[in-house]
């Protein structure tokens, strides 16, 4: 890996809720290098979006960073002021969201919203900004860009709106792009278009990219590396090939087996029993132990550390090696 673009160390984020403090992100660490796509995958409520927003300096309302450090291109951004964040966002790090319609201003034309990036950050004139906007729209595959510039967001289909969002995100040549469930609201064929577009742009510009998804298939298609999140922690990391071929955490293994594949021949799926824990009262020890077929006494008492399994490959399970080698103890 050449230059590290993003380094996250032991990040923890807590919400103040009427029922007490809720730790949504509990000690998360990872890196993203130049030209590398990291997928963060996990079920809803596992802390993916909170992590992503925190990286963008958008700590949600009633939440605070309890601990940890975020470094973007070698610069510690943990204590930045609002003004400093505004300069960083768009220029160095950008984000796209699941629902492009609510992320776009409905009362302004799409062209205006793209061109605004150049006017505000680059202090370019109106004409020049519009010219650049047309170029960007063509780059992200919006047909007939010149004419569509003056249309409002609601005139665009879901897929086209997401392209507009990508154009805005990429306008200022950021180094790092965070995509939070960018295709979840889209149809399969349109999802394929958007994933291909993201991959193309990412390769062409050697972007660092974080793609957040709950869909293991999307991750397999879009990412180089993967971090699996469960109940606010990263439980496993590695390259997609490493993790998909030999999962080293029971949760990852469970997720893989819960997805229907052409090979299962319709046989019953191995569902993970139970539900994710209540983050207001997470279980002692390993947060996964109540659902884990590998769990033993140790799991109920000691929260597992990250076990290094190789270069940039780790699992937060006491029995990672056992899981990897496929010695399945079964339930009980």
């Amino acid at each position, binding site marked *: 890996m050449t230059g590290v673009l993003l380094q996250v160390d032991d990040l923890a984020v807590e919400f103040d809720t009427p029922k007490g403090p809720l730790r949504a992100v509990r000690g998360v660490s990872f890196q993203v290098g130049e030209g590398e796509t990291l997928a963060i995958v996990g079920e809803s409520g596992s802390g993916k979006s909170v992590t992503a927003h925190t990286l963008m300096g958008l700590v949600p309302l009633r939440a605070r960073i309890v601990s940890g450090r975020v470094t973007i291109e070698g610069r510690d951004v943990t204590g930045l002021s609002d003004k400093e964040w505004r300069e960083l966002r768009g220029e160095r790090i950008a984000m796209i969201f699941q629902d492009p319609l609510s992320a776009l201003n409905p009362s302004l034309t799409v062209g205006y919203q793209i061109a605004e990036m150049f006017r505000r950050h680059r202090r370019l004139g109106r004409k020049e900004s519009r010219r650049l906007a047309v170029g960007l729209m063509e780059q992200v595959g919006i047909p007939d860009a010149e004419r569509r510039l003056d249309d409002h967001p609601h005139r665009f289909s879901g897929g086209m709106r997401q392209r507009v969002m990508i154009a805005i995100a990429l306008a200022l040549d950021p180094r790092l792009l965070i995509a939070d469930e960018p295709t979840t609201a889209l149809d399969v064929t349109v999802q394929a278009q958007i994933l291909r577009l993201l991959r193309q742009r990412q390769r062409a510009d050697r972007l660092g990219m974080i793609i957040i998804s709950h869909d293991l298939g*999307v991750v397999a*298609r879009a990412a180089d590396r993967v971090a699996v999140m469960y109940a606010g922690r990263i439980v496993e990391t590695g390259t997609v090939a490493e993790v998909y071929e030999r999962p080293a955490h029971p949760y990852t293994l469970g997720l893989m087996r819960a997805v*229907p594949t052409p090979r299962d021949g319709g046989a019953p799926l191995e569902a993970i029993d139970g539900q994710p824990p209540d983050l207001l009262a997470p279980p002692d020890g390993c947060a996964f132990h109540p659902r884990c077929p590998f769990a033993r006494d140790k799991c109920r008492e000691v929260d597992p550390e990250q076990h290094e399994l190789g270069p940039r490959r780790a699992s937060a399970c006491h029995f990672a090696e056992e899981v990897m080698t496929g010695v399945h103890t079964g339930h009980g």
Partner: protein
Amino acid sequence: MSTPVMDEPILELDDLVTSYRLTRGIGRSGGEVRAVAGVSLTVRAGETVGLVGESGCGKSTVARTIVGLVRPSSGRVLFEGRDLSTLPAQEMRLLRQDIQLIFQDPYASLNPRMTVAALLKEPWRIHRGLVPRERWDEEVRSLLDRVGLRAEHADRYPHQFSGGQRQRIAIARALAVRPRLIVCDESVSALDVSVRAQILNLLKDLQRDLGVAYLFISHDLGVVRHICDRVAVMYLGKIVEVGSKDSVYRHPSHPYTQALLSAAPSLDDWRDDERREIVLGGDVPSPLSPPSGCRFRTRCWQAQDRCREEEPALIERDTDHPVACHFPAPS
């Protein structure tokens, strides 16, 4: 696994057309959307038929027409050979027991003011005599047990459950009338992977034990492949291909089916990075003004002049695997 009687059709859709009238402002008519534009499909007792397609292609409208929430503009819905649209209201209401619908969002489809017990007893209040009153409590417990909930859940309200549990309640409620066919409209789409697997397993168990048939509507091709015996692919209000699971997934013949299968992400996608991927251009046209000829031609890489002029019929070639395309891939 394979079920008792799997031959006689219980549901037949015969050239079904369902339109929505659009209103523009007060009283003025803004035309019609033909959301379902001539669909024929058969579901046999005890089998699972998948209906896949992208959003807006008319899947939910098919479901809503079958259960009688909307009226077809033309065509017929036959349940065990009887045309539902010509049945007198009283018989229609009785027949309602035999066909149930499970929605995508179990929270929206369960009355938030009712406890689980009340929700499950509601059908017995409606269809008196179905279950004698003195057996209601017992029956509620057995239904809850059947779908993997506990007896003490009976007194709680829907909002006190997680998404997966709510879907279990919705399933229990559908089972309360002992239906012969359950239409599942994206019933597992809102669930997380691990919970989705639980519900899919439950649906399969119920089918094995009770012999109920499913019309399983989903946009997720992987899930459909897992649970269905036969699959129908829909595009813009029409079925473009239908056949047994194996024939459709192994030998997709319609270009749209091929594109859909190629676009669907799978766990194995990381293996071949430069795999032959069909990425369709553009978007689905509006059902308000569908293209002439073949509805898919505006996005089809096989399209020729004939596709513009002539609408391809859903015809069987040599196999039990009809395709609506002038130039289908050889199977």
